[in-house]
C-alpha cells in the first residue's frame, strides 16, 4: 500500500491518484494534408463551382420564353433602305418585268400577313429594312393563275414541294399576299405560329371532342379551341373585306344571328365562345361560298401538309389513333384540296410540304413521288429536250421508278386524297438571273459587302446546290462573312 508522505517540496507531488476521466480529452488527430484519398464522409467531387453568379432577376413568366422564340422580327433598322425598290401591287404582280427582282411588301399588307401568321421564324425577315420578296418564276406563275381564277371562277388546287430551303413557305406567303391585294378572303393554317402550331392540329395539344351531329363512321372530332383561333385569324386578317359582307343565309345556331350582321362580326362570335366555334365556322364558310350574294374568291392555305396526312396523336375512346382526316378542320382542308368540295365563287387551295419539320408520312411521300416521277417518263430523255437545256436546268438523270415499299403499310385515305387533277409543283433552285437579283438586293441593303458580279453569283449559286434560295441566303448574308 502506498502512502503519501508529506513532500519536501510543497507544490509538487510525487504521485497522483486523480482519476483518468478528469484529465483533458485527447485531441482528435488532424487529417494529414499529405495523405492520399478523401476522408470518410467528405465529398471529394465538387462539380459545382463555389462562386457561381446567380441572376438576381426573376425567372421569365410562363410563356415569355416561347413568345421570344416565336417572335417575328420584320425590320432591321441598321440595314440600308433599298432605293427604287418597287412595292408588290395588283398591277405589277404578274408583270414579266419584275421577275428576278425583290419587291417590297406594303405596310398594311404586312399587318394582314402578320395577322394571318404567314411569316415564319428563321426566314431572315429581320435582316432587312422592311419585308421584301423575290419574284421568281413560280411567283409570277401563281400571279397569273390567280388572275385566271378570277376570270374563270375556277379553283386552283396545288401542292408545293421541294427540298429544304427551296422557298415553299415563301411562295405560299407570296400567294397569300397576292390574294390580300386582290381583296380575297384568306384562310390560313400556318405551320408554326405564335399561339397554335400547325402540328397542334394533330399533335393532341388542344382539346377535342366528338362532333355530336356526325353519324358517319369513323366519327368526326371537333377542336373547339383551335377553331376559335382559326376564326380569330380569319377575322383579324380579313377584317376589311369581311366587315363589308353581310349575312345572307339563315343559320340554325345556338345564338340568334341578326340579319345584316357582318361576316367579321359573325367570326368574332365564334372567337368569343369556343363552344360554338365550329358551327360558326361552318356558317361563315356557307356564307363565303354562297352564290346568292356577291362573294369574293377564297384562298385556303396550309403549311406543313405532312402533319394532316397521317394518324393524329389523338385517341378515340377505344384508344385507337384518330386519323387526321377525321378532325373537322383537317378534313375541311383535305376535302377542298382533293376537290371533294368546291369553291363556287372560285379561289385557290394551296398546300406546302415542310422539309425542316418533317413528320413521318410515307403515304404522302409516295403519292407525291409517284406524281412527280411517273413510271412512264422515267425512260431516257428525248434528244430534243436535252438540247434545249438552259443553265438553270439540271441534267436529266435516270431514276428508279417509284414503287410501293412492300414492307411499309400505306394509308389509302391519304393516297386517295392526292387526286390526279391536283397539281403538284416541285420547287427547284433559282435561275442565275434570279439569284443575281436577290444578291443585288442583299448588297443594296448593306448586308452583303461584296461586289455582285458574274463570278460571285456563280460561286454562291453553286454553293447553294444549284440556286436553292435558302442556301443562297445562308451563304451570302447569314453564314460566315467572306
Amino acid at each position: 500500500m502506498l502512502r503519501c508522505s508529506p513532500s519536501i517540496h510543497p507544490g509538487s507531488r510525487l504521485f497522483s491518484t486523480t482519476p483518468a476521466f478528469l484529465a483533458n480529452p485527447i485531441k482528435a488527430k488532424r487529417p494529414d494534408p499529405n495523405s492520399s484519398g478523401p476522408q470518410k464522409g467528405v465529398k471529394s467531387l465538387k462539380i459545382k463551382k463555389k462562386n457561381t453568379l446567380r441572376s438576381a432577376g426573376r425567372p421569365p413568366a410562363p410563356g415569355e420564353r416561347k413568345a421570344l422564340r416565336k417572335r417575328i422580327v420584320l425590320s432591321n433598322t441598321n440595314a440600308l433602305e433599298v432605293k427604287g425598290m418597287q412595292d408588290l401591287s395588283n398591277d405589277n404582280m404578274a408583270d414579266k418585268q419584275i421577275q428576278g427582282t425583290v419587291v417590297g411588301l406594303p405596310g398594311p399588307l404586312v399587318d394582314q400577313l402578320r395577322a394571318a401568321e404567314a411569316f415564319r421564324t428563321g426566314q431572315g425577315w429581320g435582316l432587312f429594312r422592311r419585308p421584301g420578296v423575290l419574284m421568281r418564276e413560280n411567283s409570277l406563275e401563281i400571279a397569273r393563275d390567280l388572275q385566271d381564277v378570277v376570270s374563270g371562277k375556277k379553283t386552283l388546287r396545288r401542292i408545293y414541294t421541294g427540298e429544304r430551303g427551296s422557298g415553299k413557305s415563301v411562295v405560299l406567303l407570296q400567294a397569300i399576299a397576292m390574294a390580300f391585294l386582290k381583296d380575297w378572303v384568306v384562310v390560313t393554317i400556318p405551320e408554326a405560329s405564335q399561339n397554335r402550331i400547325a402540328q397542334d392540329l394533330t399533335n393532341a395539344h388542344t382539346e377535342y371532342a366528338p362532333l355530336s351531329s356526325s353519324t358517319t363512321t369513323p366519327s368526326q372530332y371537333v377542336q373547339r379551341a383551335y377553331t376559335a383561333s382559326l376564326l380569330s385569324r380569319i377575322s383579324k386578317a380579313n377584317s376589311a373585306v369581311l366587315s363589308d359582307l353581310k349575312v345572307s343565309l339563315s343559320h340554325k345556331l345556338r345564338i340568334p344571328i341578326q340579319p345584316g350582321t357582318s361576316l367579321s362580326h359573325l367570326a368574332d362570335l365564334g372567337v368569343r365562345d369556343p363552344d360554338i366555334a365550329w358551327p360558326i365556322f361552318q356558317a361563315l364558310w356557307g356564307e363565303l361560298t354562297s352564290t346568292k350574294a356577291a362573294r369574293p374568291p377564297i384562298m385556303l392555305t396550309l403549311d406543313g401538309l405532312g402533319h394532316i396526312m397521317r394518324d393524329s396523336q389523338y385517341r378515340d375512346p377505344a384508344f385507337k389513333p384518330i386519323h387526321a382526316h377525321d378532325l373537322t378542320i383537317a378534313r375541311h382542308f383535305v376535302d377542298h384540296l382533293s376537290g371533294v368540295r368546291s369553291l363556287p365563287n372560285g379561289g385557290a387551295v394551296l398546300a406546302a410540304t415542310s422539309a425542316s419539320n418533317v413528320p413521318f408520312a410515307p403515304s404522302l411521300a409516295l403519292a407525291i413521288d409517284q406524281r412527280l416521277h411517273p413510271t412512264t417518263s422515267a425512260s431516257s430523255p428525248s434528244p430534243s429536250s436535252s438540247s434545249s437545256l438552259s443553265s438553270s436546268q439540271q441534267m436529266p438523270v435516270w431514276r428508279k421508278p417509284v414503287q410501293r415499299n412492300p414492307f411499309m403499310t400505306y394509308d389509302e385515305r391519304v393516297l386517295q386524297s392526292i387526286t390526279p387533277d391536283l397539281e403538284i409543283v416541285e420547287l427547284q433552285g433559282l435561275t442565275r438571273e434570279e439569284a443575281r437579283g436577290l444578291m443585288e438586293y442583299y448588297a443594296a441593303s448593306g448586308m452583303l459587302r461584296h461586289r455582285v458580279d458574274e463570278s460571285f453569283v456563280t460561286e454562291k449559286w453553286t454553293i447553294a446546290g444549284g440556286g436553292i434560295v435558302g442556301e443562297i441566303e445562308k451563304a451570302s448574308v447569314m453564314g460566315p462573312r467572306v
Partner: protein
Amino acid sequence: MVFILGVNFPEQRLVKRALESFYGVGPSISLRLMAKFHIHPTARVGEIATKQVTDLTAELSSMTIENDLRRRLRDNIKRLRDMGTYRGRRHAMGLPVRGQSTQTQISTARKLNKIERKG
C-alpha cells in the same frame, strides 16, 4: 381546385399527373382513361369540363385502385403463405421470391417482401 375521387387538385395540375397520383393508375391506364373521355394528354385539371370530371370520378370509383388494390395484393401474398407454398414462405421471411441469390443485394426484398405489404 377540382375534386377527382375525393382528392383536391390545383387547377394547373396536368390531368395525367393527377390521375397517376392514385395507386394503381400508371402512364398507360391514365392515357386510356383520358382517351375514354376525350381529354387530350396535355390537358390541365382546370380546363376540363365538369362532366368529364364526374365521368372520371365515376370510372375511377369502379376500378380496383388505392386501398382495394393494396388489399388485393396483401390477400394474394396471404393466400400463398396459407397454402404453405415456397413463395409464401419467402414472402414471410422477407427474402427474394424468385430464386435470386441472397448473399448480397437483397435490400429490395427485405423492404418489400412481407405478409402485410404496404403497396
